[in-house]
C-alpha cells in the first residue's frame, strides 16, 4: 500500500520535472506514461476490498508541506502585488497570518496521515483515468493550439508540467487525512487553475486567471477560518477523528459552514460562479480536466467528507437549499448562452449544485445520488469538453450557431457530442439515475423539490437544443468520416463507451463501494438505503429497474438504427417550403419578388429575459441570501 501511495504522488511529480526539462518533442509521451502508471495503481487500489485504509508513510512529510504552504502563499501574495490586486493581497496575507498562528498552535498530528475509504477509491479512479484520456487528447490539441496562438515553444512543456502537478495535487487531496495537508493540496489546485487559465497570456486570459485566483484565495481563507475555529472547539487536525468524534454544537456548525463555503467556492457555486465562467478562456484540456470533471469535484469531496457530521440538522437543509438554488438559477442562465463552452460551464455549476443539494438532504439515498452524480458527471463532462475542443479547432469558433449541421462536416464527432448530451438527460444513463434518486430523496422538502423540478426541466431544454443542433444533413452532399489524429479519436470513443456502458456497472459500484461507505456511518444514515434486487435499485420509496431499462434502451437503439439504415437507401427530399421550393434539389425557396431565399434558423436564447442584467442581479442577490441562511443554519 505504501508503495502505491508513493507512486500516486511521486510519478506525476517526477514526470512534471522531466517534462519541464526535456524539449517537448521528446517529452511528448512522458505524461501519458506517468498517467498510465497512476491509472493502473488507482484501479488496483479500487479493487482492494479489505485493506488498511488508514496508514502512515515511512517518513513524516508534514514539515515539508508546511514550508511549501508558506512558499505557495508568498507566491500568491507576490502575484497580487505585481498585479496590484488588493483582494488577492488581502485574502492571502490574512491566510498567511492565520496559517502561521495555526501552525504554532497545533501540537498534535493525526494518528494517520492517510485515509483511503470507499469514496477516495472512487475519486482516485475517475480522476486518474479521466486525466489519462484528457492528456492523450491534449497532445495534438496543444500542438495546434500553440501554432494558432503563436506561443513560445516551451509553452507546452509548462502546460503539461502544470497538468501533472495538478494530478499529483489532486491525488494528495483525495488520500490525505490531515486537515492542513488538505488545505495545502486545495491551494495546489488553486495554483494550477490560476496558471492554466492564464496560459495563453492574452489580456482576457490574464484578467480571468486573476479573477480565479481572487475567488479561490477567498475560498482558501474560508477554509483556514473554518479550521482555526474547529481546532479551538475540538483540538485535532485528524479529519476522520473530527467527523467521528467532534461535538456538534452551534458554534462548531458555524465554523464548519466556513469549511463548506470553501468547498462551494471551489465548486463555483452561486454567488462565486464567475471564476469558472472566466476559466473557459483556457485551452480546452484545462476546462475538461480542472474545470468540469475533477478539480471542481474537490469541493464536493470536502463536503462529502464532512457530511456525516451535520446529518439531520437544519444546517444541512440550508446547504441543500443553496445547492438547489444554484441548480435552478444556473440552468436558467445556460439558456441564454450561445458559446458552447459557456453552456458547458453553466451546466457544470448547475450539476455541482444538484450534487450539493443531495449532500444537504443527507440521507442514505441522497448520498448515493451525490456519489453517482459525481462519478458519471466527471465522465460525461470530460467527453463533452473534448468534443467541443475538437470541433472548436476544426471550425475556429465556439459559437453554437456555427456548429449547426455539423454532421455534414465531421459526422463522428458530431454524433458523439449528440450522444454525450443525450446521456446527460435521459434514462437509463448515470446522470438520470442520479437525478431520479435526488428528486425522490428530496421529496420531503417541498421548496427544494420544486427547485429541482424546475431546474431539471430547464436542463432538458438546453441539452435537447444542444443535441438537435449537430444532427443536420446537408442535402446532396456526400458525408465522409472526418480525418483526425488517432490521439484525438481514441479518447473520444473510449469516453463515449464509458458514458454508455458504465451505467450498467453502477449496481456493482453501489454494492461494492457506496453501500459499504454508507454502512460505516449506519448510526446516522439508517433508513431507506437502496437495495439491489435483480439489477434494480429499490428502497421503500421507489425502484429503478436499471438492467431491464438498459436492455430496452439497447433494443430500442438497434430497432431505430435498423430503420435509419433502411432510410439511408433512399435519397433525401428537400424540406417543406409551402410549395415554393427553388427546385427539386436545392435548399431554399423563391419569395414573391422571385428572389431565391435560403432560410436560416437559430435557437431562441431568450435574451430579453436571460441577458437582462436584472435577472442576473436578482440571482446574485438571492444566492447571497441563501448563503447567509446557510452560514447561520447551525445556530440554535
Amino acid at each position, binding site marked *: 500500500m505504501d508503495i502505491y501511495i508513493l507512486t500516486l504522488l511521486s510519478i506525476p511529480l517526477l514526470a512534471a520535472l522531466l517534462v519541464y526539462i526535456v524539449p517537448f518533442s521528446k517529452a511528448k509521451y512522458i505524461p501519458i506514461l506517468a498517467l498510465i502508471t497512476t491509472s493502473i495503481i488507482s484501479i488496483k487500489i479500487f479493487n482492494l476490498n479489505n485493506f488498511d485504509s488508514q496508514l502512515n508513510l515511512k517518513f513524516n512529510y508534514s514539515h515539508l508541506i508546511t514550508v511549501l504552504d508558506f512558499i505557495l502563499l508568498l507566491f500568491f501574495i507576490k502575484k497580487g502585488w505585481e498585479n496590484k490586486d488588493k483582494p488577492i493581497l488581502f485574502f492571502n496575507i490574512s491566510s498567511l497570518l492565520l496559517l502561521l498562528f495555526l501552525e504554532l498552535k497545533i501540537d498534535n498530528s493525526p494518528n494517520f496521515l492517510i485515509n483511503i475509504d470507499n469514496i477516495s477509491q472512487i475519486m482516485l479512479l475517475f480522476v486518474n483515468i479521466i486525466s489519462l484520456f484528457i492528456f492523450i487528447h491534449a497532445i495534438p490539441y496543444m500542438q495546434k493550439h500553440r501554432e494558432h496562438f503563436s506561443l513560445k515553444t516551451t509553452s507546452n512543456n509548462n502546460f503539461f508540467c502544470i497538468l501533472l502537478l495538478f494530478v499529483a495535487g489532486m491525488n494528495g487531496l483525495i488520500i490525505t487525512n490531515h486537515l492542513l495537508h488538505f488545505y495545502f493540496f486545495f491551494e495546489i489546485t488553486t495554483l494550477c487553475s490560476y496558471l492554466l487559465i492564464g496560459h495563453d497570456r492574452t489580456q482576457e486570459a490574464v484578467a480571468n486567471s486573476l479573477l480565479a485566483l481572487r475567488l479561490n484565495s477567498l475560498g482558501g481563507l474560508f477554509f483556514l477560518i473554518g479550521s482555526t475555529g474547529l481546532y479551538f472547539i475540538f483540538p485535532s487536525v485528524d479529519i476522520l477523528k473530527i467527523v467521528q468524534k467532534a461535538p456538534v454544537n452551534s458554534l462548531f456548525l458555524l465554523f464548519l459552514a466556513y469549511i463548506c463555503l470553501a468547498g462551494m467556492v471551489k465548486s463555483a457555486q452561486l454567488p462565486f460562479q464567475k471564476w469558472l465562467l472566466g476559466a473557459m478562456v483556457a485551452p480546452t484540456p484545462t476546462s475538461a480536466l480542472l474545470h468540469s470533471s475533477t478539480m471542481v469535484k474537490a469541493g464536493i469531496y470536502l463536503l462529502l467528507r464532512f457530511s456525516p457530521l451535520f446529518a439531520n440538522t437544519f444546517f444541512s437543509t440550508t446547504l441543500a437549499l443553496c445547492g438547489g438554488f444554484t441548480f435552478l438559477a444556473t440552468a436558467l442562465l445556460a439558456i441564454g448562452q450561445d458559446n458552447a463552452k459557456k453552456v458547458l460551464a453553466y451546466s457544470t455549476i448547475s450539476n455541482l449544485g444538484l450534487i450539493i443539494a443531495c449532500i444537504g438532504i443527507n440521507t442514505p439515498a441522497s448520498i448515493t445520488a451525490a456519489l453517482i452524480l459525481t462519478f458519471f458527471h466527471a465522465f460525461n463532462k470530460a467527453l463533452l469538453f473534448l468534443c467541443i475542443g475538437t470541433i472548436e479547432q476544426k471550425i475556429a469558433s465556439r459559437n453554437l450557431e456555427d456548429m449547426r449541421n455539423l454532421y455534414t462536416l465531421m459526422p463522428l464527432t458530431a454524433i458523439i457530442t449528440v450522444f454525450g448530451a443525450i446521456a446527460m438527460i435521459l434514462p437509463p444513463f448515470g446522470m438520470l439515475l442520479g437525478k431520479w434518486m435526488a428528486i425522490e430523496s428530496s421529496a420531503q422538502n417541498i421548496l427544494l423539490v420544486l427547485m429541482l423540478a424546475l431546474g431539471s426541466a430547464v436542463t432538458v431544454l438546453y441539452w435537447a437544443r444542444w443535441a438537435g443542433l449537430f*444532427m443536420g444533413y446537408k442535402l446532396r452532399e456526400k458525408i465522409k468520416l472526418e480525418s483526425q489524429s488517432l490521439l484525438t479519436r481514441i479518447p473520444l470513443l473510449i469516453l463515449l463507451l464509458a458514458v454508455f456502458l458504465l451505467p450498467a456497472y453502477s449496481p456493482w459500484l453501489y454494492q461494492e463501494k457506496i453501500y459499504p461507505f454508507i454502512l460505516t456511518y449506519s448510526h446516522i444514515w439508517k433508513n431507506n438505503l437502496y437495495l439491489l434486487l435483480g439489477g434494480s435499485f429499490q428502497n421503500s420509496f421507489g425502484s429503478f429497474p436499471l438492467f431491464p431499462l438498459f436492455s430496452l434502451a439497447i433494443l430500442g437503439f438497434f430497432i431505430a438504427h435498423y430503420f435509419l439504415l433502411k432510410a439511408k437507401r433512399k435519397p433525401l427530399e428537400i424540406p417543406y417550403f409551402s410549395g415554393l421550393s427553388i427546385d427539386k434539389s436545392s435548399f431554399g425557396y423563391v419569395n414573391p419578388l422571385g428572389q431565391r431565399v435560403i432560410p436560416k434558423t437559430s435557437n431562441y436564447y431568450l435574451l430579453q429575459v436571460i441577458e437582462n442584467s436584472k435577472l442576473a442581479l436578482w440571482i446574485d442577490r438571492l444566492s447571497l441570501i441563501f448563503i447567509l441562511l446557510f452560514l447561520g443554519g447551525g445556530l440554535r
Partner: protein
Amino acid sequence: MPMFLKLFLFLLSPFAIGVILGIDRKLTAYLQSRIGPPIFQPFYDLFKLLGKESKTSDYWLSFCAYVYLCGAITCAFLFFLQADLLLIFFVQAVGSIFLVLGAFSVSSPFSQIGGQRELFQIIAYEPLLIAVIVGIYLVTGSFEISSIYKLNYPLLAKLPLLFLILTFALTIKLRKSPFDISASHHAHQEIVRGVFTEYSGSYLAIVELAHWFELVFILGLISLFWANSFFMSTILVFLTYFLEIIVDNITSRLTWRFMLKNAWSVGIILALINLIWLYKG
C-alpha cells in the same frame, strides 16, 4: 391484478386510445357544426400513412421517430406494471425529446421553430408533472403506482389543486388549444404542423402511434386520481378528456410567453399550496 391481465390491458390500450381519438374528432366536428369522420377514422389514417412511401429530408429523423415509439411503448408498459411513477415520467421524456431532436435534424424553418416551441411546452409541463408526482408521494408515502391502489379514498380528495394543475399540464402536453403552440390540430394547419412538419408518410404514422401510447400514460395518470373505484376512475378520465375537448374548441392559441409565465407562476404556486397542505396536514 395478475400479470397476464396487465399485459392484456396493455395490448388493448392503443385500440381504446384510437377510439377515444375518434370520439374526439366526432365531438370536435359536432362543436364546429360538421358531421365529422367515422369513429374509426384514426385507425384508417394510421394504416393509410403506414402504407405510404417513406421519404424523409433527414436520415436521423427516421431514427428519432422509432426511438420516440420505443420510449412511448416502454412508458405505457411500465405504467401497466405499476412501476415507479417518477421513473415512468423520465422514460416519457425520452420520447418527447427524440420527437424534438427529429424536428431539429431538418433545417426547415417550420420544424425548427416547431421544435423550439415544443421545448418550451416541455419546460412548461415537466415541473408541474413532477409536482403532481411528489404530491402523490406525500399522500401515499411511495412513488410506486401500486401503492395508490392500496388507498381507500380517491387521491382527488387530497390533491384538488394538483389535479387542476395536472389538467393544465395535460393541455400543454397534448398540444391542445390554447396551448397548441408547437403543433396545431386544426385541419387547415395539418400540412404544416410545427414540430411534425417534416415527419411524413410512415414516419408520421410511427409518431402518431407513439403519441397514442403517450396518451395511455396521460389518461392513466388521470385515472389514478380515483383509483379505488374502477367505475369512478373511468368517469373521471372521460370527464377530464371531454373538458379538454371543449376547451380545445372554445379557445384560441396563446403565445408561449403566456404559457411559460403562467405554468411557472400560477402552476407552481398552486402546486406549492397543495403540497403545503399535505406537508402540514
